[in-house]
């Protein structure tokens, strides 16, 4: 079973603000799901390589050439706050 502190730690890592009710709900639900996932431990995988992609290895390099991107207006159109054609945020470094 996950503890309340563990759930709060995960929420902090995930940058998610959770209410007290949500924290308790996810503590119970994540515990149940992780318990279910424990069945994977019964397999011996010491000789098995992990799969991160199902594709065969293939080259994805391209020439490093400039090409047109989105216009500044297009990029900023969805921003919640814009100031002097830049994203406006509160100070991130004290």
């Amino acid at each position: 079973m996950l503890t309340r502190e563990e759930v709060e730690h995960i929420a902090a890592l995930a940058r998610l603000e959770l209410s007290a009710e949500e924290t308790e709900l996810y503590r119970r639900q994540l515990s149940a799901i992780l318990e279910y996932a424990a069945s994977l431990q019964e397999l011996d995988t010491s000789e098995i390589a992990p799969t991160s992609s199902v594709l065969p290895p293939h080259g994805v390099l391209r020439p490093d050439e400039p090409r047109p991107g989105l216009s500044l207006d297009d990029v900023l159109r969805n921003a919640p706050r814009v100031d002097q054609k830049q994203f406006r945020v509160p100070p991130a470094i004290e």
Partner: protein
Amino acid sequence: MGNVCTLSAVELCQALRKGEVSSRALTRAYLERIDALEPKLQAFLTLTPDLALQQADLADQVLFEWRKDTARLLPPLTGLPIVIKDLLCQRGVRTTCGSRILENFIPPYSATAVQRLLDAGVVTLGKTNTDEFAMGSSTENSAYQITRNPWNLTRVPGGSSGGSAAAVASAMAPLALGTDTGGSVRQPAAFCGVTGLKPTYGRVPRYGLIAYGSSLDSVGVLARSAADAAMLFQHMAGYDPLDASAMDVPVPRYSLQDKRDMRGLRIGVPEQYFITGIQHEVEQAVRNAITAMQGLGAEVVEISLPHTKYALPVYYLIAPAEASANLARYDGVRFGLRVDDPNMTALTRKSRGAGFGPEVKRRIMLGTYALSAGYYDAYYGQAQKVRTLIKQDFEKAFEQVDVIAAPVTPSTAFKIGEHNEDPLAMYLEDVFTLPANLAGVPGLAFPVGFDGEGLPIGMQLMGRHFDEQTLLQAAHTYQLFTDWHTRRPEF
């Protein structure tokens, strides 16, 4: 022409070329049908009637010019209306992913799959409802509305491409785009009695598909038949320099023959997909369809996919892990919902807390946990290794057989609200669709019967990497002999 909304997409393209119907008349007919049915079904998050009629008028001009000189090149789908799952970006059209966090997001570009279809001449009617960020199996996780199953309004349409499946089943559109990360095209196709193609991973570019699980996501098609699905799929597939996972593998011409036998096709039937707990009528209908294919000359082989039962825990570690990384981009800065705070971290935490719904938060939490220091090897690392075993199961099976036949879901469409309290019970709905995503193989779902309540039953064929052709041809031949796919709910 009678009611144009009942014609197949292939027939509609022919009628448009011959001038038997104009794109404007066709588009209006669909928009009128949507007006009439949408209050009951709630399949759309955004409708774009003005854009659709503009596109239709342009298509009619192109068709008019082409008829004067048919030697000219005509974009192959000119004037054909389609609808798009609201997980795929369309330039200038609101794209929400079924989430409050993207309530006002207007993409500055179109997904490659969408752009290719626009270039092929389609008319876009609107964006369809989805579980938030495609996380769900019922479309109940949409932050906006609950889509109803056209066969029974108290039932879910499946998910996450539930809006697209409901729209095609109720003839509000002849074709729809969906996406499939763990079954999100095939499961709603089964629940709504339509044909749904999840292509090979890497066959259709993911550029502009808003990311959920990047090693699993694929763009697919919902249609009334395999022939219609093949026609749309033809124009979406192929290499894309904007997506490193869109493989540079030649796209064949998906031309389906009106072949009336299945001689030479070896169909594998995996024992692990016919388990206790499966609804009897589902098992019976799928077995009947396999017997029918045998009667057409196919060879049926019992096979084993021994690691099938691990697909569910593997998926529910890998997909949330990838989601937790992908959804980090919603930070309240560049796009999406923002809840202001003088502290930058608090701004991000509050924006995400307010913008994401319960299932998305659950999966972000689960994925963050599976990737966190101290748990990575036991959860995410182990899941990636078991994924290898699942993939190898398929590789071994395809040494023996050409396709694998199985049910799409353990049961027919469940009731709205039935799984509200228990996320794990909802996850179990995906037990037969997840393995194809983990192995990256294509899957095609199509109707093979109805249960005692009149709800559609689906079967899926899974195939080798990049061998969608064999799946489509097999389903097409089956559909030449059966009429399950032509049955429609009454409206």
